[in-house]
């Protein structure tokens, strides 16, 4: 039977060997870093769990505004969503884009409630937890995923407007989406066409 000191010596050797093996693997360049090569399921599970647990903890204390259903928020948030998000997260009538095809993991289609993508741990879209999660992700972004942090350039009200719009987006038709996201004023049409 191993003595305690022999056990710790063996453990130390195993840890050093693991670090050396990891270092060798990193410096060898053998890891397939291309976005067109999928993660091993274990790596995917590790990264997804790390992401979801981190967001859930960080977003816990966020206070949701009471006027999230106001028409003004929908109009302001819709216009920003159309300018900033549709390339990756799509809009009614679109099922893919260069970004959704090329990015890995593929960004979630936020215009569809029946998105059967890999985001298995995402909470129900109408729950407060999901609303806090959306706000946090828009504000802070997610490392190495293609999702930028909009917080440095957009104040919290603007981000809440986008969150408000996201709650309605899956139910919008193409024409409803067009009206809600158009930045122009109908008066402009009259000004130019007449």
């Amino acid at each position, binding site marked *: 039977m191993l003595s305690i000191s022999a056990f710790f010596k063996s453990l130390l050797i195993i840890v050093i060997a693991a670090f050396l093996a990891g270092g060798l693997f990193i410096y060898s360049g053998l890891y397939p870093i291309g976005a067109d090569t999928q993660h091993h399921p274990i790596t995917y599970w590790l990264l997804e769990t790390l992401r979801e647990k981190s967001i859930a903890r960080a977003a816990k204390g966020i206070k949701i505004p009471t006027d999230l*259903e*106001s*028409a*003004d928020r*929908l*109009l*302001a948030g*819709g*216009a*920003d969503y159309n*300018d*900033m998000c549709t390339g990756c997260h799509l809009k009614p009538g679109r099922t893919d884009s260069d970004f959704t095809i090329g990015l890995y993991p593929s960004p979630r289609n936020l215009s569809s409630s029946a998105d059967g993508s890999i985001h298995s741990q995402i909470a129900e879209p109408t729950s407060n937890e999901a609303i806090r999660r959306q706000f946090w992700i828009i504000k802070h972004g997610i490392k190495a995923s293609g999702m930028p942090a909009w917080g440095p*350039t*957009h104040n919290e009200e603007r981000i809440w407007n986008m969150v408000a719009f996201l709650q*309605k987006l899956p*139910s*919008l038709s193409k*024409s*409803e989406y*067009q*009206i*809600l*996201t*158009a*930045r*122009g*004023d*109908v*008066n*402009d*049409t*009259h000004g130019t066409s007449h």
Partner: protein
Amino acid sequence: MNMTTSILLSTLLTTTLAAQAHDPKEHKKDAENPDCSEMKNMDHSKMDMDDPVMKAMMKKCKKDMHHDNENNESDSDHAHDDNQNKDEHAEHKH
């Protein structure tokens, strides 16, 4: 001295431009106008006016629909005037 001033000014300008990078006003130049034609064809009695989406659409298209209503009213006024004129002409003929 001049060198320092120009560096400071260029830094300030760059920072200001970065802060205005996504100002909604910047998008106004090439802004798309709402296509309110479908709103006009909708049966307004069947609309749920408590629905936030409907409220937002009404708000966006209000001016356009109001403009159309005014046109319709003025068209009907013109038609009314035309009928009156026709009646007057008929009276003159008698």
